[in-house]
């Protein structure tokens, strides 16, 4: 049996608007192996971002279990979830969401402020992360001084600087030109291949999904998978 990092069991999520229940996810079961690169696809409103949010611990299901590395995060309170996210999850957003008044260095350093690392160690970690994304020489640049692709790479550096188990990416190439998008996807692939990061990526773009090991399609809250649970390659074991 394949090893699993993420296990969703009978997860249901619905929103309530003006006394009307809007179902989004219906009894979802999903297993994701460690080191897997999974793409979530589906039409708008299909629930893929909601599913990503639940896995990342920034939203809670109405019912069901979400086990990440053996821990049911659906049962954690807000404070516990914040601590868990800081340690285990790296976020990559469509619009990068860098803090405009902070330099690239300071943006990447942000998650490390929550740790007890010394200033020097924080600096070392930040420069390592910026080197991984190829922007070590842009550490003093502000987001407005960077191109969209560079901003997204800084955002990826911010996502990996704490060395999290899981990277979640919501349309990471949705706001980029084709060349920059390809660079970002190559970078994600590299993080997956070389650094064994488990990546779950929401995308509309079939070419982007093509970089993943497997693709999950969501439609009307139901899930269908292309490819089985990812088997960790021997080289990674």
């Amino acid at each position, binding site marked *: 049996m394949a090893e699993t990092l993420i296990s969703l069991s009978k997860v249901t999520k619905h929103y309530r608007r003006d006394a009307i229940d809007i179902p989004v996810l219906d009894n979802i079961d999903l297993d994701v192996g460690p080191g897997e690169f999974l793409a979530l696809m589906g039409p708008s409103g299909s629930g893929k*971002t909601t599913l990503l*949010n639940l896995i*990342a611990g*920034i*939203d809670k299901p109405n019912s069901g279990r979400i086990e990440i590395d053996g821990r049911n995060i659906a049962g954690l309170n*807000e*404070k516990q979830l*914040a*601590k868990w*996210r*800081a*340690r285990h999850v790296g*976020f990559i*957003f*469509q*619009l990068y*969401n860098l*803090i*405009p*008044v*902070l330099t690239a260095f*300071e943006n990447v350093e*942000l*998650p490390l*402020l*929550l740790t007890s690392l010394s*200033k020097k160690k924080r600096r070392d970690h930040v420069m390592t992360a910026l080197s991984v994304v190829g922007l070590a020489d842009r550490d003093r640049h502000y987001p407005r001084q960077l191109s969209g692709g560079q901003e997204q790479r800084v955002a990826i550096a*911010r996502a990996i600087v704490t060395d999290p188990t899981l990277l979640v990416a*919501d349309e990471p190439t949705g706001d980029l030109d084709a060349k920059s998008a390809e660079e970002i996807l190559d970078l994600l692939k590299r993080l997956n291949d070389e650094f064994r990061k488990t990546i779950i990526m929401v995308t509309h773009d079939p070419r982007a999904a093509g970089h993943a090991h497997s693709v999950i399609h969501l439609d009307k809250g139901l899930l269908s998978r292309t490819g089985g649970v990812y088997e960790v390659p021997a080289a990674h074991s």
Partner: protein
Amino acid sequence: MKYLRLIVKNASRNKRRSVLTILSISAAIFLLTFMQAILNSFTSASELTGAERRLVVRRKSLADSMPEAYREKIAQVPGVVAICPANWFGGIYKEDKPEYFFARFYVDAKTLFDVQSEYQISPAEKEAFQKERTAAVAGQKLAAKYGWKIGDVIELTGTFFNVNPRLTLRGIYTVPADAPEGGLFFHREYVEEALNNPGEVGTYRIKLDSPSSAPAVMDTVDAMFKSSAWPTKTETEASFQASFVSMLGNVKGLIASVGLVVVFTISLIAANAMAMTARERYTEVAVMKALGFRPGLVLGLILSESVLIALIGGLLGTLGARVGASVMPSALRNMIFLQNLRINLTVIALSLGASILIGLFSGGIPAWGAARVRIVDGLRRVA
């Protein structure tokens, strides 16, 4: 400390708004500091010169006087070691202009320096003052202001009283640093004779043997004259000064009210600015929370920004008030009885405390709102 850079950068992200908020807070704190200093100046004299001195004033109104006969009776009260009748002369020196205004009293020359023991004067000058009916003494700062020297003639024109004293300066006294000067003193006999000895005393200044005697002396003196036609009100020098000012109306209440209204109004303005700042950063807050920043930390960071802005405003306002107090023309000080106006450490601490409160008040609700932002709602705003 590791969050300091984040706080400073966020506080200064919209420079124009931050500068305007800082300026509005500094204006409020400038006024507040000045008002506190004015309130303090009304009561500071007794603190500076010791609590052992007390004043006797006529009950109800300071404008009324008491008989001279009270002097002997008050002097017999246990605890009283010296007593000096003193009347406010008023009048005009040179011209009826603020720059020529200063305090002028006609007093008992023999006991003035016993009661006002903090006034330092050479024995020779003191003796010269006490011996000569038309002699006067002035504080060192007052003498310096008008260039008076020993032997100079000082002419006053009476306004309340139909007498124009022609005085000779026989002594210049000094006071300890921070203590207020009393002004110009001259002989009671001189004015009394010119007025055909009406025998009226505005205030009796009393010196006690010890501060602990004060309550008993105040009770005894007031009880002694309770049934007379001129009942008295005995009070501390601090209370006396407050009463003096109250002749102008409830100045303290007015000043305090204006101060509070100003601070409250500025707090609302600052709160609006902070609310705008927080609203603009809805998504950023959601991102920070997604990265693991707990709601309490978000609350603390935004409150810190608000307090930082308010504190800078407070420092500027306090500094401005301090500079303003030091350059205030002495004529203005005399006009409004502000000889003791001083922006001291207590006033500074209170003003900075008020700044911090403005920061907490103005940033409180926006910070609370930001801390409660649901991450998914905040992130959805982007898409």
